[in-house]
């Protein structure tokens, strides 16, 4: 008879640390630190100048929001390729709101942007959840459609920085205790999302749906509803990202956000969110977003022509999924061994 010993405090601490060390996300964090250190060694301005530090934290925060939303959708075994177009539309809407309704409170613009993104996500979610069509196809279509609407609406106009109130633009570079405001917003969203996915039932059900939709359905989970909500959240986050984009860059044309969707998926995948759904965390996606952006910035400093950035990102994505696969194989082998003991 094996005696079951209660885990002591040190045991719990150690196993907690062990879990942390082995976590996929820690690997990303390590990679991020290595890249930053390497770049800083080459050029201390990378981190130690005011601008450098600010840019390091600031620019990726837009991608972070989109990556978090994308992670939520990917966890349910779907994908949302239309987030780039949603971001662009939302950014343009932000500018137009300031032009057509002068004096509109900034908070209203934020809310409208989020709502707008949510509605666009709802369209995706409804088609995926109710028509049972793979998300890849639907969001491919809405990618075209939303971008087309954006271009048709904007024509060859664009929003200039002078069209928006200075206080809004200041948000783009303002800092609170050296941390940019935009980063704070993004991190706040990240915290909420992370907590919700881990500690709330609805959040954990997303993982179940992603692991095995059939079983989840049989188990009685409200699959349709959850998937719908996942898409709405993803769209809403893309909408928020669009508002932040306007604040940061000031100029918005009809091509804003093009290509963001693949970066968001890449960030999520690199961060450990399995494309097959059911595993990964939004923390990983956030770290993945930071890693991607930071590598883009660090490469020229490390002497790699910035033309090779895309290739590096691609290699990273492939490396990440190969790594995931190897880890999964190793884990299943260990489980089989444990079972066959």
């Amino acid at each position, binding site marked *: 008879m094996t005696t079951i010993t209660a885990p002591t405090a040190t045991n719990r601490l150690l196993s907690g640390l062990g879990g942390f060390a082995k976590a996929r996300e820690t690997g990303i964090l390590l990679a991020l630190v290595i890249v930053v250190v390497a770049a800083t060694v080459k*050029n201390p*301005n*990378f981190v130690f*100048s*005011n*601008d*450098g530090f600010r*840019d390091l934290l600031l*620019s990726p925060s837009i991608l972070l929001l989109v990556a978090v939303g994308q992670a939520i959708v990917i966890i349910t075994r779907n994908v949302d390729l239309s987030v780039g177009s949603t971001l662009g539309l939302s950014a343009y809407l932000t500018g137009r709101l300031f032009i057509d309704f002068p004096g509109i409170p900034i908070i209203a613009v934020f809310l409208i942007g989020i709502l707008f993104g949510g509605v666009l996500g709802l369209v995706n979610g409804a088609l995926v959840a109710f028509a049972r069509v793979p998300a890849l196809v639907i969001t491919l279509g809405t990618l075209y459609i939303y971008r087309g609407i954006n*271009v048709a609406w*904007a*024509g*060859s*106009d*664009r929003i*200039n*920085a*002078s069209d928006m109130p200075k206080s809004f633009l200041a948000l*783009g*570079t303002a800092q609170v205790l050296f941390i940019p405001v935009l980063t704070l917003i993004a991190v706040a969203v990240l915290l909420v999302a992370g907590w919700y996915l881990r500690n709330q039932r609805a959040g954990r059900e997303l993982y179940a749906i992603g692991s095995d939709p059939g079983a989840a359905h049989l188990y009685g989970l409200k699959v349709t509803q959850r998937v719908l909500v996942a898409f709405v959240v993803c769209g809403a986050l893309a909408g928020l990202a669009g508002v932040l984009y306007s604040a940061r*860059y*000031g*100029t918005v*044309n*009809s*091509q*804003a956000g093009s290509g963001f969707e693949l970066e968001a998926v890449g960030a999520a995948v690199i961060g450990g969110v399995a494309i097959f759904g059911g595993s990964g965390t939004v923390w990983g996606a956030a770290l993945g977003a930071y890693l991607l952006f930071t590598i883009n*910035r660090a490469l*020229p*400093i490390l002497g790699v022509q*910035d033309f090779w950035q895309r290739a590096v990102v691609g290699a990273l994505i492939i490396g990440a999924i190969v790594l995931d696969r190897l880890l999964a194989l190793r884990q299943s082998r260990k489980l089989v061994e444990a079972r066959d003991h």
Partner: protein
Amino acid sequence: MLFHNHSRARRAGAAAALAVSFALVATGCAATGEEPGEGGEGSGDANLAITFVPKNLGNAYFDTSDKGGETAIKEFGGTYDEQAPAEGTPDGQVSFINTLTQQGVGGLAVSANDPTAICDALNEARDAGVKVVTFDSDTDPECRDIFINQATGEGIAKIQVDLIAEQIGDEGQIAILSATANATNQNAWIDLMKADLTANHPSIELVEVVYGDDDDQTSFDKTAALLQTYPELKGIISPTTVGISAAARYLQTSEYKGKVALTGLGTPNQMRDYVEDGTVTAFALWNPADLGYLAAYAAKALIEGEITGKAGDKFEAGKLGDYEVGENGTVLLGEPYTFNKENIGDFDF
């Protein structure tokens, strides 16, 4: 699934498909014999439908130039249109040029993204009777009838180098923020700038040329990267209106404002803010509206047979007066103009 029986349906379906494709093909074959030359409008009655094909859409510089063209076209009673890809890629322009050829326009005014890539499309247009004028950014001379140059390449390069030399005390590191890597005019100017620097400003070091692709966000990010990578950077030249305004916007909110000089080619409206608060001291340009205006009149002269694009041809360009075609089919608009705090309030474009 009953594969076996499905395959019969598939085979019949394939046969039907082939039949329809043959029908389609037959239409194409049967309609031959008509040379594309006759496809367009007859040249007896001058076809003054002129379409502007700038490098890309959403670019304030081209908005102004094309409006200038529109003004001219309205003056002489033609039809104006503007078509361009959203991104400044060479092959993007080709499909628009093809469509315009099919539609049988009278003339095209093109600012080329690449000197050779759009050549074949332009020559096909010319074979179909369309007159081709390039402005702002040229193609190989064999592909167009006339090129409207805003100023001599040397003049444009020199004025920007002079401005930056003045602003940084004629020594130090500078960088260039360009548009797209293939753009004819950009590369021509950059080469001339390099020559000017080597010959006349030996203490100025050009450390890098980066490409912002005439995209605002990319130019913005590239400026940030430049400033971080070269802590000793004293000046940036951006010979593109999109680049200079994005760089100015970045500089305005960064710690380098006032420490790193910025000059190049910009439009007064976009740059007014930055000149007034000191981020930018002076920059240059010409009047893009005049450029488009002149291009439209040149197209009209070609369409009506007044000129053929040979050196020595003369034509009249409305309120701008008379112009003569120079070597290689080039028409010069004038000289570049320097904008600074004193005069920037006088302009609205």
